[in-house]
């Protein structure tokens, strides 16, 4: 028995994970592709009806909500990830030197990352509440106009971006900090000997050496930001109207509010394609950045 297992350890060890992946990922994907070609309202009496590519032509042609949701998804992801990377980098540089209360600071920074997104969203709902929230009191205290925040269709998406940046900047900061502390020392010593100034050391040594870590953080965050669901659903459910609707919440609404499983599946297929294309582009960029360094 032990001998049999030892010879096949490689395959036996990986087997359960493969099975789970096939059952949970590959099979549902195939099923989604099939569903996207049908029209079905979830009724048990009348099963899915095959309609070819109609769902896709509807989404890409007649359906205004889809294009708008796709645009919002890209806008949300682009803006939040850009802010998170820049802010995260600054925070990582600040936290790099040791100081008093370092451990406590790092723990506090970690809190938004591990805290429950839904609980965070609820807390922000209180903060943003026009009547009872502290956000308006703060704005008025510094002499700005009171806002409707999440109830304002033209601004709600931007206020949600603030929440996302608040929650995820710390994670980027911690990843970049881990990268900073594991940089090799020799280039810095050499630069010091050559008399390089601090900005020069940052520009020519720290920054290039950090590019791979920054790309890793970028890919990680891009993928997760595209998937943002909890914050949006818990606070606005995509509203007011469809002002904060992204592909994620649109797909959800089509499936579980309107029980349009066929159309929802088509939304999901297009969503997956967008995620894959973006991931592919960034990982290609990662490879090129790696080559330039070598």
């Amino acid at each position, binding site marked *: 028995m032990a001998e049999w297992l030892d010879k096949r*350890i490689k395959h036996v060890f990986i087997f359960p*994970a493969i099975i789970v992946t096939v059952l*949970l990922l590959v099979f*549902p994907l195939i099923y989604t592709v099939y569903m996207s070609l049908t029209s079905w309202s979830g009724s048990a009496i009348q099963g899915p009806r095959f309609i070819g590519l109609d769902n896709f032509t509807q989404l890409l042609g007649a359906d205004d909500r889809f294009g708008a949701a796709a645009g919002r998804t890209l806008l949300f992801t682009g803006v939040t990830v850009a802010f998170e990377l820049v802010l995260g980098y600054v925070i990582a540089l600040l936290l790099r030197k040791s100081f008093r209360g370092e451990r406590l600071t790092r723990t506090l920074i970690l809190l938004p990352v591990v805290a429950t997104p839904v609980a965070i969203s609820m807390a922000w709902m209180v903060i943003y509440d026009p009547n009872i929230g502290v956000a308006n009191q703060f704005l008025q205290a510094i002499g700005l106009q009171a806002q409707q925040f999440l109830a304002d269709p033209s601004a709600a998406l931007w206020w949600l971006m603030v929440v996302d940046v608040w929650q995820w900047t710390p994670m980027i900061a911690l990843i970049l900090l881990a990268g900073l502390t594991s940089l090799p020392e020799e280039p810095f010593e050499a630069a010091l000997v050559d008399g390089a100034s601090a900005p020069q050391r940052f520009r020519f040594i720290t920054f290039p050496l950090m590019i791979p870590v920054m790309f890793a953080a970028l890919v990680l965050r891009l993928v997760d930001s*595209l998937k943002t669901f909890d914050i949006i659903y818990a606070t606005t459910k995509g509203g007011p109207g469809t002002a904060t609707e992204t592909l994620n919440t649109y797909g959800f609404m089509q499936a579980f509010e309107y029980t349009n499983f066929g159309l929802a599946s088509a939304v999901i297929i297009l969503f997956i394609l967008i995620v894959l294309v973006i991931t592919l582009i960034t990982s290609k960029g990662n490879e090129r950045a790696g080559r330039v360094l070598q």
Partner: protein
Amino acid sequence: MILTSVKSTVDIYNPDKLFSFTPTLKNYAGILTDSNIPESAKHSLIVAIGATVISLLIGLPAAYAIARFSMNLTGMVLLLVRMLPGITYLVPWYIILTKLGLVGSYFSLIVSHLVITMPMVIWIMISFFQNVSTELEESGRVDGLSRTGAFIRIVLPISKPGIATAALLSFIFSWNQFLFSMVLGASQKKTLPVALFDFIGYASIDWGGLMAAAVLMTLPVFIFSLFAQKHIVAGLSAGATKG
């Protein structure tokens, strides 16, 4: 959040009482005796522990195989699971689980959470196993252990800190999971994030109760983070720093 959780309803709606108010624990008492929060906490706990244990059972050997036999392609495929939006799996699962009559069961919740926790365990553990020297394993095998024996008796004990990190993060992410829990848990097995929505009525929101519940559900995560701060950071950035 904490401020609102210890205010009375009247004080919450009075902007002058932002910081100056008489604290009350009424909201906390209310949700413990007069809501389904304790019941939901039980559901959350069962699901999070279940998903974590199964993820470790399946993920540890898989991560070991990937690390030792450099099965990079397999590793990539397993991690692809993590990249796709959750809603990708949700619609087909929902349809299938409805047909099987399993929506609203612990089974459907635990299995759906595996999509998040298992790749994470594998992701974190690959880098840990790569750092275990093969010499230790070989010395164990000279002493008559089988390869599997060496994995269980030597590799796993050495990797305890990594396993603890993976288990902790797996628990936290399952605890925080909302989308799958909401749809697949239905009304029978509401986990904590889903139960928070019970405080939002059609006309009004019970802010005090809502914030008290939110504080209670964030508390365990906060305590874990206090104790395991370094490990959590290591876990979150595992893979990222390795590129």
